[in-house]
């Protein structure tokens, strides 16, 4: 009993049908804001890591979203080891600005990693909500003049707080308390990658 006049009922099932527009829109907003979509994010009310539903939407419809963003002129990058997605701006304009954001993220993560390693702790603790960076660490990092110089030269005029905020906004690090932070899986991935690269060099 299909209505022969309605052409829509005969069109082949589209991959768009499987996804709620609200989810897709929320994802688009995340990417537009320069955020990384991680598998788990920090729920500050429950004080625990919770699964990110948007990550699952992306993961379950990977090819759809790949095509979708390709049509928008971007590349959806999935990093399996670090369990995160991010949107890469079309890579044909290899401008300076293109690398600027990545570089600033890398600088802050590297400073955190170096500080942490120098303090004699295993880097793994940086990614654990019950460990990570504490108040003393923030004070020590903030008091290091060389770090401040580097941050300023990377256009973080207000120093460490601004840099941490920058990472926080992008889901590379979570704030687990008044002055406590720990790295997300994406942030940890960068440090682990540096160690791996160094070992293989």
């Amino acid at each position, binding site marked *: 009993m299909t209505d022969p006049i309605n052409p829509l009922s005969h069109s082949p099932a589209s991959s768009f049908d499987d996804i709620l527009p609200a989810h897709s829109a929320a994802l688009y907003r995340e990417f537009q804001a320069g955020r990384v979509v991680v598998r788990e994010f920090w729920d500050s009310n429950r004080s625990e890591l919770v699964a990110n539903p948007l990550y699952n939407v992306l993961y379950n419809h990977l090819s759809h979203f790949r095509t979708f963003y390709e049509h928008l002129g971007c590349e959806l990058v999935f990093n399996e080891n670090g369990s995160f997605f991010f*949107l890469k701006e079309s890579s044909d304009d290899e401008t300076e600005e293109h690398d*600027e954001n990545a570089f600033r993220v890398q600088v802050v993560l590297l400073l955190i990693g170096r500080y942490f390693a120098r303090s004699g702790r295993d880097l793994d603790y940086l990614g654990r909500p019950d460990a990570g960076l504490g108040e003393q660490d923030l004070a020590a990092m903030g008091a290091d003049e060389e770090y401040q110089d580097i941050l300023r*030269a*990377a256009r973080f005029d207000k120093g460490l707080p601004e840099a941490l905020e920058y990472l926080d906004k992008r889901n590379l690090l979570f704030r687990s308390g008044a002055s406590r932070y720990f790295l997300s899986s994406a942030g940890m991935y960068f440090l682990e990658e540096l160690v791996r690269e160094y070992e293989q060099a």
Partner: protein
Amino acid sequence: MSKRFSTLDTTRLLFDHPKILFRLIERMDRNEARYVRESDLVAEVMDYTRTLSKADRDRVRLALTTDNLFRSGLVIDIIKAEGERRLILQDALINLMRACNASLYQELTDARLRGHLVTLRDVRNRLELSSFSEADPNFTELRDDLNERVSQLIGLLRQNVLRMQTISAQFAELSGDASRAPDKYLEFRQNLLEQIVTLYERHIKPTLVFLNPDTRLPDGSNLFETLEAMVRLLEHHGDHSLADQLFRSSLSLNALYKPIQAVAQEVEHFLRKTRRGMVQYNAMEHFYTKLRELKGETETLSLRRKWLEGGNFARSTGFLIGLRAQQRPKHHAFGNSSSYYRLLFSELDLRLADLRRKAEVPVLQEVAGSGRHARVDVQRINQLYQWLEALELRPTTDLVRELHGRLDGFIPGYRFPDLLAALNRLVNTPPEGFQVITTNRFRTLESELAPAESAEISNEQFVYRKRRLELTAENHHD
């Protein structure tokens, strides 16, 4: 060759080509000698200048001849011994060169520190017997001597702290091989521990003991006790300025304790590291060194190089390349949506309506800030109310700004207080079919037109609560 350079120009050339002296000082330190062999100098200069252009080469070679260095006072003595000529360089020059290159700092050993302490104790003993009279040359000389010793000591220790703070790079270097060859790790670790323990025992620990105010020494007072005794002596004899200066110096010395303690802690952490930890440590250090190089590039004389240029660095790691910037609110002067045009046209309509009534525009009497009569005010407000009565408005989220835009520059004599009056009127008797909703958000308006006659108040501000103008419900539906 009769041509020679002045001391200033010779020094300038030396600093333009610092590598020559860096290498010579390094060699001096290695041989633990206080002189440079002339043959070494010549060989170094020849070797270094090979790659320079002809003019530069001649200039550097001429400036660094023994003769020129001696006559310009940079070499203070030439000694002939064991069939070679030895040049003693000016201490100040060597110290400056060391300051330019952290790796040239001489490590402080226990013996050197002890030497300094003994001299200070000696100064104290002489001070006890001194006359404390400005007229006595013995006392003034002693005072100068004291100042020099203390500032020398501070300088020396500060250099060493700087040097110790680069220790992490040194560790990375020492342990570089460990992280790569797991099978040889144990043997390597043994070696490494020995090297680090030497570093710690010979340099860090003595400095730490030297700078610890609680240290008890078998042969006499420690550094701070010695300084304190001198401060008391000076105070007792009324030389307060020198006493204060010495006290401040002892504070500076005390402050040096902390950074060295931090270094000592780091050494301890390092010794406890596992292989994995060491790899992590070295990896971080490796990449941090690269970052530091980038930072070094911003510290050249070029004023334009303020920011790190991290394109290559970022691409080499590849992490998050092409990540979007955080969106900042954009100020769109023009849009192309239908709502934008609707807004534009309705605004134009309203302004046109205003212009059509141009003949009725009230001229508000100009009033200065004070000394006006209530009668004038009442008259002004009445004029303004009549104008508002017939003013057409559209729904807006910010009534105050809208109203200001309509009145400012259109009605002669308009001032911020008039806006307040106009708002009062609209809130109490809104135009037909509209309602005014007062929100709890605050906004600020600034007057762009500075009052011509009063130059000192160039910028007025109007802080207000945001008010929305909305169609009333029944109007809204039809």
